């Protein structure tokens, strides 16, 4: 909202002070949890006890049993299997969002910060404009035009997250450009692109990475919200947000697990990404000092 150059990740103060002093055990636990999630997503076809889309209309909303550890949903599908498969879209979506927004943000931010002048003004205003539209609203607009599914929300969210990275990279690029070591390359007649690729980007990469890691959890939350609204992965595919939506009616009939299990997964994943992202940012801040 201000024109001041950003040179630190925008840290929504999520879990900044939750870390145990020293940052050790909680950080490790978060990394382990994320590792387990990734494994679960990767190995879902091997470890899922049932076909996530196999209906069993004779046993809807069955409670926890040896056969269905987390019970079944209103269509008799195994909740645990759907949870494991749901981890795939649950993680792939934010990964794409973070990847795309990082690439786009680095590109726009570097060009704006390095070129300066009217290019900078134009790109900065553009980023500010996107920043002034809430990401969720942008995604809803996109879905209204492009239809629901995995692709449309991911593209919209990538755009919405680009300003976070772009404004950061722009600030960093301007700051680095003014430093003598880059100036000496310029004086030696190196081309701007070569300097940016070989010297600027490697130097600002860790800070950008920290910002992207922080963004991951939020992207996960936003995308899950979209699929809760029915704008994400379409039925019968397993998806956490959609599972919560479907599980809500089951809740009124006394079956907790179909809605609560994916809820817990989302919160745990977001908390873990928050801790890891803040941890990286803290480590960077300490190294800078």
């Amino acid at each position: 909202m201000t024109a001041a150059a950003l040179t630190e990740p925008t840290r929504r103060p999520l879990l900044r002070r939750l870390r145990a002093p020293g940052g050790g055990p909680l950080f490790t636990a978060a990394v382990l949890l994320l590792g387990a999630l990734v494994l679960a997503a990767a190995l879902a076809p091997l470890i899922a006890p049932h076909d996530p889309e196999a209906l069993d209309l004779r046993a809807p909303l069955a409670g926890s049993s040896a056969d269905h550890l987390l019970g079944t949903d209103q269509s008799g599908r195994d909740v645990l299997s759907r949870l494991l498969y749901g981890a795939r879209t649950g993680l792939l979506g934010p990964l794409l969002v973070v990847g795309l927004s990082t690439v786009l943000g680095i590109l726009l931010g570097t060009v704006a910060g390095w070129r300066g002048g009217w290019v900078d003004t134009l790109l900065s205003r553009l980023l500010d404009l996107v920043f002034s539209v809430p990401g969720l609203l942008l995604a809803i607009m996109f879905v209204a035009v492009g239809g629901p599914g995995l692709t449309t929300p991911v593209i919209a969210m990538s755009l919405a997250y680009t300003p976070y990275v772009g404004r950061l990279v722009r600030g960093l690029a301007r700051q680095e450009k003014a430093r003598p070591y880059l100036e000496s390359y310029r004086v030696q007649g190196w081309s701007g692109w070569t300097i940016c690729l070989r010297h600027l980007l490697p130097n600002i990469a860790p800070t950008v990475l920290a910002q992207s890691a922080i963004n991951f959890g939020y992207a996960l939350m936003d995308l899950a919200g979209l699929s809760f609204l029915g704008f994400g992965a379409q039925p019968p595919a397993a998806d956490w947000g959609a599972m919560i939506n479907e599980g809500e009616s089951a809740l009124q009939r006394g079956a907790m697990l179909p809605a609560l299990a994916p809820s817990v997964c989302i919160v745990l994943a977001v908390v873990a990404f928050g801790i890891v992202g803040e941890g990286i940012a803290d480590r960077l801040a300490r190294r800078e000092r």
Partner: protein
Amino acid sequence: MTRYLLGRLLGLAAVLLVTSFLVFSAVHLAPGDPVSFLLKGHPATPEARAAIAAQYHLDDPFLVQYLKWLGGALHGDFGRSIQFRQDVTALLGSRLPGTALLIGYAAVLVCVGGVLTGALAALRRGPLDRLVLIGTGVATATPPFVTAIGLVSLFAVQLGWFPGPGSTGTGLAGRLHQLTLPAFALALTLAGLLARVTRSAMLDELAREHVEVARSRGVPERAVIRRHVLRGALGPIVTVGGTTLAGLLVSTSIVETAFNVTGVGQLLVQSVTAKDLPVVQAVTLLIVLGFVLVNLLVDLLAPLIDPRVALAPGDTA
């Protein structure tokens, strides 16, 4: 001051203009013939096609269409809802009070709950502080629809204190009772965020020397907290509080859907699902308008809170 305000209002108008253009173009960006797109799911009689074409001025050049639509929008005419077969403005009018009440309720919860919790944590260090940190950490990582699930299962299904999704209350008290769970679901994430901001802003202030100076001069502790610590922390609290309230405008669509509240947010989701584009356009513009207005308000408050903040024109968006 006037110049600054003028600059800000111009910037605001620019954002709205660009957004309205994008929102309008959306219809034409959609693949296929706009008429059949707008009619999707409804019988495409020649009369209906002609009515749509006339309503959207589809026979005019694109820019002319946009200007005509914009002119209508400025007069509060957003066309007719395809889904509800009703004027969009009237439809919005009937949905707005519910959403306004919900957002107001949640905003009070966020501000009071967030600031009080954060202040308490900052002033009473130790176990309570740690508890607040963990609690707000989890709260900020819990999206509203997850909170909704938790609240419904506990308070509506198990305890039965509050009505579940889909019920309607009568009278203000009944409405508020019905909106309590949605408001808490809407508020929790943002209240956690505001509590954290309040806490760290107050801790920053507590560490400042002028606080110690005030104490060294025999100013009573309550006055030190009020006049120095809270006063100094007000800047960050208002800034984040503003973004938070703006965030409510968007999250409300999720919460209204989860609790089946007949409001603008739910209308937006229904309209997107039904491809009811005139409604989508109107609601989107309304939310963006609310968003930029709240941001403007926060920026105008900033120099009142901290006299060192100079009002600089040209700092828009």
